[in-house]
């Protein structure tokens, strides 16, 4: 080992990496909290207890729960169908699931405008039933679900492929039903991967901006999510308020990051 790494080179690389991470990640993170508290706790408190901010937080949380539930259900069913059976068109389905990954969030929002908006083919139908999707909560949820669509299934598919079908087949031959096989055999193997996917999905749903921005219409107190609320405050030059509200999301992000690391470590140690 003596030969490979001159200590100078090694230390230089480590320091360079720390510098990069501190400047690129840590300082922005700290700056949010610092700017938020710049004018003292009173101003901070006022900003985050503002009724519009609280309503935005509520909408963000509701949207996140919807996205999480829908995508978890979809992720499990899709991973099961795609890894437990062989059938034609499997690859096409896998590719289709991944499409939201490759698309700009703005385009994701645009897609729903083109379906449910005034020029969309579904608009007359919605009118008949007096429903609103675009510039309303359903549109926000739909856009968020779309953007986070692949997260859970993408984690589960490689995991379940690697695990193979032997155990499930054995259980099926002994007469176990689908639900029984899933909960007793498959789930214990994939639980950490499932949690990991759900954490990623939550993170993205909480912070989704572009797609939601397109379909929301920015109606304060109605269709404003927390990130959109931050945008409005920022563009109105209410910097302290914008950062105060951001700090809620920063705290959530740190919690998510810690959870992610715990889940990842557990998952790794279980594999070994």
């Amino acid at each position, binding site marked *: 080992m003596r*030969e*490979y*790494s001159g200590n100078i080179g*090694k230390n230089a*690389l*480590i320091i360079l*990496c720390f510098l*990069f*991470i501190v400047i*690129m*990640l*840590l*300082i922005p*993170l700290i700056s*949010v909290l610092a700017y938020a508290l710049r004018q003292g706790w009173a101003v901070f408190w006022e900003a985050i207890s503002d009724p519009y901010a609280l309503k935005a937080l509520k909408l963000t949380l509701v949207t996140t729960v919807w996205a999480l539930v829908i995508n978890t*259900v*979809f992720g499990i*069913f*899709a991973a*099961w169908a*795609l890894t*437990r*059976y*062989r*059938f034609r068109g499997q690859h096409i*389905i896998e590719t289709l*699931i991944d*499409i*939201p990954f*490759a*698309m*700009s969030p*703005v*385009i994701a929002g*645009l897609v729903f405008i*083109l379906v449910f*908006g005034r*020029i*969309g083919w579904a608009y007359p139908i919605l009118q008949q039933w007096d429903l609103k999707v675009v510039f309303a909560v359903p549109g926000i949820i739909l856009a968020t679900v779309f953007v986070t669509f692949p997260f859970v299934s993408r984690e589960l598919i490689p995991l379940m492929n690697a695990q193979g*079908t032997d155990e499930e*087949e054995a259980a*099926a*031959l002994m007469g176990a039903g*689908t639900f029984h096989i899933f909960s007793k055999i498959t789930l214990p193997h994939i639980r950490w991967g499932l949690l990991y996917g759900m954490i990623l999905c939550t993170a993205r749903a*909480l*912070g989704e*901006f*572009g797609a939601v*921005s*397109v379909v929301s219409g920015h109606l304060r107190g109605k269709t404003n999510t927390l990130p959109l609320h931050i*945008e409005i405050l*920022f563009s109105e030059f209410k*910097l302290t308020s914008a*950062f105060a509200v*951001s700090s809620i*999301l920063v705290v959530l*992000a740190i919690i998510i*990051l810690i959870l*992610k*690391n715990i889940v990842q470590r557990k998952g790794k140690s279980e594999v070994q």
Partner: protein
Amino acid sequence: MGISRNTRLRRHKSNNSVIPGFTLSLGVTLTMLSLIVMIPLASVAVVMTGYSLAEFWATLTDKMALHAYWVSLSCALTAAIINVVFGIMLAWVLVRYDFPGRRLLDGLIELPFALPTAVAGIALTTLYSDQGWIGSLFAPYGIKISYTTTGITLALVFIGIPFVVRSVQPVLEKLDRQTEEAAAILGASPFTTFRRVILPELLPAILTGFGLVLARGIGEYGSVVFIAGNIPYETQIAPLLIMVKLEQFNYAGATSIALVLIVLSFVILFTIHRLAGQIERRIKGGADT
């Protein structure tokens, strides 16, 4: 012979797994996939047929649009290159060295995934503006970062950090250390060993990471929109132009720009996938050349 082959084909067609639940799981998958992804996407095509080709072409090649593509592409490309350099370095340091704070460093890599893009956007904009903590260090020298393409690139670097690190890291972990020892015994310096022995092994992962940063960078909105400043012909990025067109109710214009971006990111991901696959196939012993 003929009969047995036929039955085998048929058995393959209707999946013959003993595990129950095929119809249910595939049914749910296809229904949700259709409702959320396929039908909305198909609608784009339907909408597009309503416009004339000339109209489409005009927006597509509009000067402002062309400039927006260029800003998006060039900034994303620069960011991807920067991320490749630092991504390899970070992956190397995290895998090969043990030092205090290593786990913290490792845990922080995904921060850009966890932090909402809008928060990152306003934080970076403020930090790098003329009065900001970092921007004020550069301002006396006439260097502006926020509201320039430098700022856009910076935001894209931020967003792209995890991609290269996380695609290179597992490959580096699994690398056979003996090939490096072999190179050292054959007289190669550490740098030559890295360049000629390790780098080729990492290349497919680096390419994958590069492609992901590039594709993400071209479509990125939240973190960039604040720092970009949205000055037409200067710092207007393509996703923002879509937004602008939508606010003007110019759906045809928005859709045609979206189409360009979609095609662009698919071409990038497809090319990278092909390239990485080709390299992988060669070393796995497939028929090459």
